[in-house]
């Protein structure tokens, strides 16, 4: 885990970019599944929450009215799989009126320039 924004992101083996909110589509669930399986295969996995994907991290989530399971149980499993490198788009947070205090896990906010560097420095990137 890197300490503060401004320092250089430490590349993992795989970067999974999550851009969709918990409900409404299957994107977030299936993206998190890949991250968890890759970690189970011994890969170091970093997650980047971008755009509405940031809502995945909001505290106080429930399964919801659609009969879906929700994705918060998957997020709760990240630590068990040693996935603790979580980045979020700082601009995405600002646009949604959120701060890192609203999120259920510790994250590192990145400005746009740092996100470009993040994508460039990872050997593998999967976007969901």
């Amino acid at each position, binding site marked *: 885990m890197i300490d503060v924004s401004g320092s250089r992101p430490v590349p993992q083996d*795989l970067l999974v970019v999550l851009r969709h909110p918990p409900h409404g589509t*299957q*994107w977030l669930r*299936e993206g998190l*599944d*890949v991250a968890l*399986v*890759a970690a*189970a*295969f011994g*890969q170091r996995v970093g997650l980047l929450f971008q755009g509405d994907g940031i809502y995945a991290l909001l505290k106080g989530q429930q399964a919801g009215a659609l009969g879906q399971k929700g994705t918060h149980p998957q997020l709760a499993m990240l630590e068990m799989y040693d996935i603790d490198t979580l980045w979020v788009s700082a601009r995405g947070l600002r646009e949604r009126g959120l701060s890192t205090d609203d999120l259920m896990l510790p994250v590192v906010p990145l400005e746009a320039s740092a996100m470009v560097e993040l994508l460039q420095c990872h050997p*593998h990137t*999967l*976007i969901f």
Partner: protein
Amino acid sequence: MLNYALLLHAAPYSHQAALSALRFADTVVANGHRMKTVFFYHDGVHNASALMAPPQDEVHLADGWKRLHREHGTELLVCVAAGLRRGLLDVGEASRHGAMSHSLEAPFELTGVGQLVDAMLTSDRMITFAP
């Protein structure tokens, strides 16, 4: 020569992505590279439907993927979790779930996400096609 893997998230015909992925795969082999693996995930699992029946004057996507396997040995891997949810079952899964018929046949293979990770690690390039 490079080993290529494709990750296909898009349903057939609903979006351009599946057609683009097949064209890309054909171009990979036409240029002397190896089209090692296509992994079907998310709505992309529908590309593996054995019951696909497009009009005769349209590209038959499932046949296109099967041709790649036949002529170039491309692995056609379908995520089992994404597939079962969406009704893609081979004979074994259909029997296990008490379904009246199956919808997925060889050379498509139901497999786990671990195979996606493996394809990513053992290929020189993995390219995602999404809607």
